[in-house]
């Protein structure tokens, strides 16, 4: 037995398996990220959704009323992954964000204790945030210099809000593949939380 979810895709309604839903959602999210720089991203996306709905529609008969993960995977192979769609543009698309290995210092909101300054610095130098925190604490006890530096950094450093900023913070090159991994990770933690 499997749980199904009822969705509206391009104006059609479908019953879709839970795992198939997760796959479809991940795919559409990736496309959204891929077309994010396009002026009419939402229009392109809704056109693609309509087409996928058509592809799903022909899969259904009176004996088969639910969209399975195999249907979703097949539709994805027909439509193409973001990498396929951009053909070989991906090299230039990667360069547009930042060069490989380039990272910026951000405040890390996911691992913060006060303002995420220490965890962000830890991510930047690829060391444990605790090491940075201890240094700040020592500096703070020696005449309060640590507190001042912390405050300045808190104001100066931007918070890593978007997925691409979080990747930049960790020093990985920003490209579709990385973003996909991060989104997948985030998606998995959310589904895990929902199950608990």
């Amino acid at each position: 037995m499997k749980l199904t979810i009822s969705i509206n895709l391009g104006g059609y309604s479908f019953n879709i398996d839970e795992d198939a839903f997760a796959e479809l959602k991940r795919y559409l999210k990736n496309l959204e990220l891929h077309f994010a720089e396009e002026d009419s991203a939402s229009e392109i996306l809704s056109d693609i959704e309509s087409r996928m709905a058509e592809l799903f529609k022909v899969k259904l008969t009176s004996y088969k009323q639910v969209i399975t993960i195999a249907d979703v995977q097949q539709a994805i192979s027909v439509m193409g992954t973001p990498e396929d769609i951009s053909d070989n543009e991906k090299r230039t698309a990667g360069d547009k964000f930042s060069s490989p290995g380039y990272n910026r210092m951000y405040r890390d909101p996911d691992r913060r204790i006060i303002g995420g300054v220490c965890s962000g610095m830890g991510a930047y130098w690829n060391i444990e945030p605790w090491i940075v925190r201890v240094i700040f604490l020592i500096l703070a006890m020696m005449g309060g210099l640590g507190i001042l530096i912390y405050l300045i950094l808190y104001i100066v450093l931007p918070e890593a809000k978007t997925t691409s900023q979080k990747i930049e913070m960790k020093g990985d090159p920003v490209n579709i593949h990385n973003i996909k991994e991060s989104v997948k990770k985030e998606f998995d933690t959310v589904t895990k939380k929902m199950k608990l």
Partner: protein
Amino acid sequence: MDLENTKAQMRKGILEYCILSVLSRNSCYASDIIRELKEARVIVVEGTLYPLLTRQKNAALLSYRWEESQQGPPRKYYELTQEGREYLDDLDKSWDELVKSVNLIRSGKKSKTT
């Protein structure tokens, strides 16, 4: 040099031209265009088409209207605008020239080697 990359670059330029050509005969909705392009093997994955259609629409080469469909929700029918027709005429000419030039070079190369 990467053969696949070169091929992809060639296809990409031609694809835009092919979409306009398909639409020059009559207005179609996206799935009709895809069918023709797939039959002619100029398109590999369908997703490539949609950003191109939207870009051409934004450039006022195409316009679209919603049409009722018996099978489901209304469909988007694309057609060429006057500007699109002129654009296509230009592309037709440059395509003919390109084919001529390429053929000239290819045949020239052959006569040298033989």
